[in-house]
C-alpha cells in the first residue's frame, strides 16, 4: 500500500506573526518557515505505518511556491520516499487544494491519505474533509490513534465530548490531531540522503487546468483587539476581594 501525505509550508508556530501596517497581510519576509505541525505528525504516522510493514511507500505532496521544496526535503529527511511539488505562485484555497490533491490521487492511487487537520496559517480545517468528499471516500478527522482492523482503519478521534472511535474502509482520508504521535527529529546524514530522493515538480496549471469554484476574497487584515492591561496583586486576600467585587465568587 502507498500512503500519500499532503503537507503545507507555513510560518513556524513559534513566530508571533504581525499584521502589516497597511492591512494588506501579515509580515512573512525573513520569517522562519516550517512544515505545518499537524502535517509533520501526518508524515510521522505514515512512516510508522510503513515501518510496521503495513505500507511500502510514503509519498509527500504539497501545493505551493518553489520554496516549498525545503519542506518536502525535510519530509524526505524524516523518511518519506519521494515528493511531489505542485507549483503555484498564488495561494490556493481549500476547495481548490482538494481538487489538485484529487488529481494527484488519480495518478498515484494511494491506499491511504494522511494530512494535518488544519494549517496553522489560515486555520481553515477544510481541505481533508473536502478531499474525502470529492474522492467519494470516508474521512476520519482529528485522529489521535489509528489501528488496522478488519481490512480497514479504526480511528480514535478527538471530539469535544471526549474520544470517538469510528471504523472506515480503505482508501480513506485521515486528518491528524496533536496527540497522534511525536514526530522524530531529522539527523544530518538523513538530510544528505534526502537530497538524492526524487522530487517531482508539476505546474498547477498543467496538473489541474480546470479548477472549479470561486475563491473567498480577503479584503482586510487587522491585529486583534488587545485586552486591557490588567493588574498584579500580592496576596490571596486582594485577589478574593477583586473577585467578590466583580461578583465572580461569593
Amino acid at each position: 500500500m502507498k500512503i500519500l501525505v499532503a503537507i503545507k509550508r507555513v510560518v513556524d508556530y513559534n513566530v508571533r506573526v504581525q499584521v502589516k501596517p497597511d492591512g494588506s497581510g501579515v509580515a512573512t519576509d525573513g520569517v522562519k518557515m516550517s512544515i505545518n505541525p499537524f502535517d509533520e505528525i501526518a508524515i510521522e504516522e505514515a512512516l510508522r505505518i510503513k515501518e510496521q510493514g503495513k505500507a511500502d511507500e510514503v509519498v509527500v505532496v504539497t501545493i505551493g511556491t518553489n520554496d516549498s521544496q525545503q519542506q518536502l526535503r525535510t519530509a524526505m529527511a524524516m523518511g518519506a520516499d519521494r515528493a511531489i511539488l505542485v507549483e503555484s505562485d498564488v495561494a490556493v484555497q481549500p476547495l481548490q487544494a482538494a481538487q489538485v490533491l484529487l488529481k494527484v490521487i488519480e495518478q498515484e492511487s494511494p491506499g491511504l491519505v494522511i494530512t494535518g487537520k488544519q494549517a496553522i496559517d489560515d486555520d481553515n480545517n477544510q481541505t481533508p474533509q473536502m478531499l474525502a468528499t470529492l474522492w467519494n471516500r470516508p474521512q476520519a478527522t482529528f485522529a489521535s490513534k489509528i489501528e488496522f482492523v478488519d481490512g480497514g482503519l479504526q480511528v480514535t478521534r478527538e471530539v469535544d465530548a471526549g474520544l470517538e472511535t469510528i471504523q472506515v474502509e480503505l482508501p480513506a482520508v485521515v486528518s491528524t490531531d496533536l496527540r497522534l504521535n511525536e514526530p522524530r527529529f531529522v539527523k544530518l546524514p538523513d538530510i544528505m540522503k534526502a537530497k538524492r530522493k526524487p522530487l517531482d515538480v508539476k505546474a498547477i496549471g498543467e496538473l489541474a487546468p480546470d479548477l472549479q469554484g470561486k475563491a473567498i476574497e480577503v479584503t482586510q487584515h487587522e491585529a486583534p483587539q488587545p485586552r486591557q492591561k490588567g493588574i498584579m496583586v500580592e496576596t490571596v486576600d486582594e485577589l478574593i476581594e477583586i473577585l467578590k467585587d466583580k461578583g465572580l465568587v461569593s
Partner: protein
Amino acid sequence: MSKVLILAEHNGNAINQSTAKVLAAAKQLNPEAIDVMLFTGNTGLATQIAGHEGVNQVFCVACEDNHDQLAASIAPTLADKGKEYTHVWGPSTTFGKDVMPRVAALLGVNQVSDVMEIIDAHTFKRPIYAGNAIITVNTDTAQIVATVRTASFSADKTTGGSASVEESTLNTAANHTSFVKLSSGDSDRPDLQTADKVISGGRGVGSEENFAIVYQLADKIGAATGASRAAVDAGYVPNDMQVGQTGKIIAPDLYMCFGISGAIQHLTGIKDAGTIVAINKDGDAPIFEVADVGLVGDLFKIIPEMMEKL
C-alpha cells in the same frame, strides 16, 4: 434576501448550546427565514429548537446505527436541502468542523471557517494564525457555507416560537464509515464550553494526582475545569479539557488558570473570557500580559489558601 439553514448539534439527549449561538449569528444576517436541520430520531429535540423565536421550520432527519453524527452520512442530505438557501451554517465545534466542509465541497464553494463577526450577509470577520490576525472576507457564492465561532456570540435565549417540524429518514448513509464508540469522561461539573466560570491547570500542576486540588477549587466555586495542551499531553487530564487553538475556544465570565505559561495557542482559546486570573510562580510568564488579575506565587500554597478563604 437571505435564507439560512442551520445544522443543529445534539448528543442524543439535549441540544448543544452551540446551536443557539449559530442561531444568534444567523439572526444578525436579518434573513427572510431561518430553518434548522437536525439528524436524530428524537423529535423531542426538534421541538426544543422549534421553540426559539425566529425559527421557521425544523427538519428532523432520523438516522439508524448512529449515523446521525457521521459527516459522510449526513452531509449529502444537508447539502441537498442547502441548495434552497443562501447560507448554510453550522457550529465551529468538532462536530461542525467535521461536517460543514463536506457540505461546502458538495455545493462547490469554499467555506468561511470560524465566523466571529458579521458585517453584512456576504462579509465576515474571522481569525487566522491562532487569532494573531483577523481578516475580513467577502464572498458572493450562491450558498455561503460557514462555521460560527461559538465564543463570539451569546446563545439565543428567545422562546415562544412555533416552527413546524418536518420528519424524514436519512437516505444518504455512507456504508464505508461506521460509528464504534464514544468515551467521554463523565463528570458532574459544568460543561467547559458553556460554563460561566472555568478553573484550569497546566504543566505546573505536575501530575494527575495534583490536579485534585484544581478540581476541589472548581467545585468550591461551581466552575468547569480546563487545561493546557501540556497538561493533556502529559496525561494529567483527558483531552476534552484542552483549551486553545486546537482545543476548546471558550468565553466564560471568569477564567482562572494555575501553572499555565500563556502560549499563543492557549491564549487563542480564552481571549473572549470576561475576567482572566492567572497564578504562576514565574513573574515573567506571558500569561500575565493578558491577565486582568495576576498573582505571582506557588499554586500549591495559593489554592489551599483560597479554599480556606472562599
